[in-house]
């Protein structure tokens, strides 16, 4: 099944959320539920909980920076089991290119600015991919224990 929103072509799970912080719990539940069958054989509980933390931070960043806090937009979130990895993809229409390397590393005690650093620490790969029609895809990848 081809999915124009995410670029995925294999069966997967997907949710569509509104760009409001009240949706964060749904995002966390979605990632936890999708990954639950893979714990503990392929992923440790800690690795999946870190993926949940990263997914939460990506969603906050999209709402806050991609959509400037406006709550009437949508975010498409997909989860896919690639066998050797799990991929969570977020697509937004904020149209704001983002360079994670431009964000300075936070120092302990500052009030904000931790999101990107947390994402980097929590997943094996985090990618920000500009798409067509003002869309941006953010992909989080975690590798299975036996992926080599």
């Amino acid at each position, binding site marked *: 099944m081809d999915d124009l929103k995410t670029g995925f072509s294999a069966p997967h799970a997907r949710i569509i959320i509104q760009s409001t912080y009240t949706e964060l719990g749904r995002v966390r539940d979605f990632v936890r539920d999708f990954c639950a069958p893979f714990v503990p054989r392929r992923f440790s509980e800690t690795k999946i909980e870190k993926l949940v933390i990263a997914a939460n931070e990506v969603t906050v960043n999209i709402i806050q920076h991609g959509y400037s806090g406006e709550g009437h937009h949508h975010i498409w979130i997909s989860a896919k089991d690639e066998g050797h990895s799990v991929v969570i993809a977020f697509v937004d229409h904020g149209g704001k290119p983002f360079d994670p390397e431009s964000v300075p590393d936070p120092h302990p005690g500052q*009030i904000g600015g*931790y999101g990107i650093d947390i994402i980097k620490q929590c997943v094996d790969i985090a990618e920000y991919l500009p798409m067509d029609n003002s869309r941006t895809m953010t992909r989080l990848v975690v590798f299975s224990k036996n992926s080599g």
Partner: protein
Amino acid sequence: MKIFSPLQFRRKEKKVEVTTIIQNDALIIRLEGEVLDAGNSAEFKEKIQPLLHNRSQVAFDFGKVRFIDSSGCGALISCLRKVNADDGKMVFFNVNRQVQTLFELIRMHKIIEIHETREDALAGLNA
């Protein structure tokens, strides 16, 4: 493929509820909600900051909290700054594994003592 629309899982706003206790001159703030995230961190700051006025010893009990994100941590750091500005001391206790993971990611333990029990926290405030 499972597809869920925004209407199927509409959640209620997560209101911030806390219980406060005074013990040995210390203010203990127990968070009653399970989540402190971007959805309620502003309300948390608004509700907690007045409680901290002129308090020299403050301990946060995280026993019921299951998830905190970076926005929640930012709200807690704001509280810490206020207490420090009044020459006070603030500590955390009763932190579960998931919350501890987030605290480690942002190196919270470098700026605040994290204790296992209330007794340890009270001792830490007087150390």
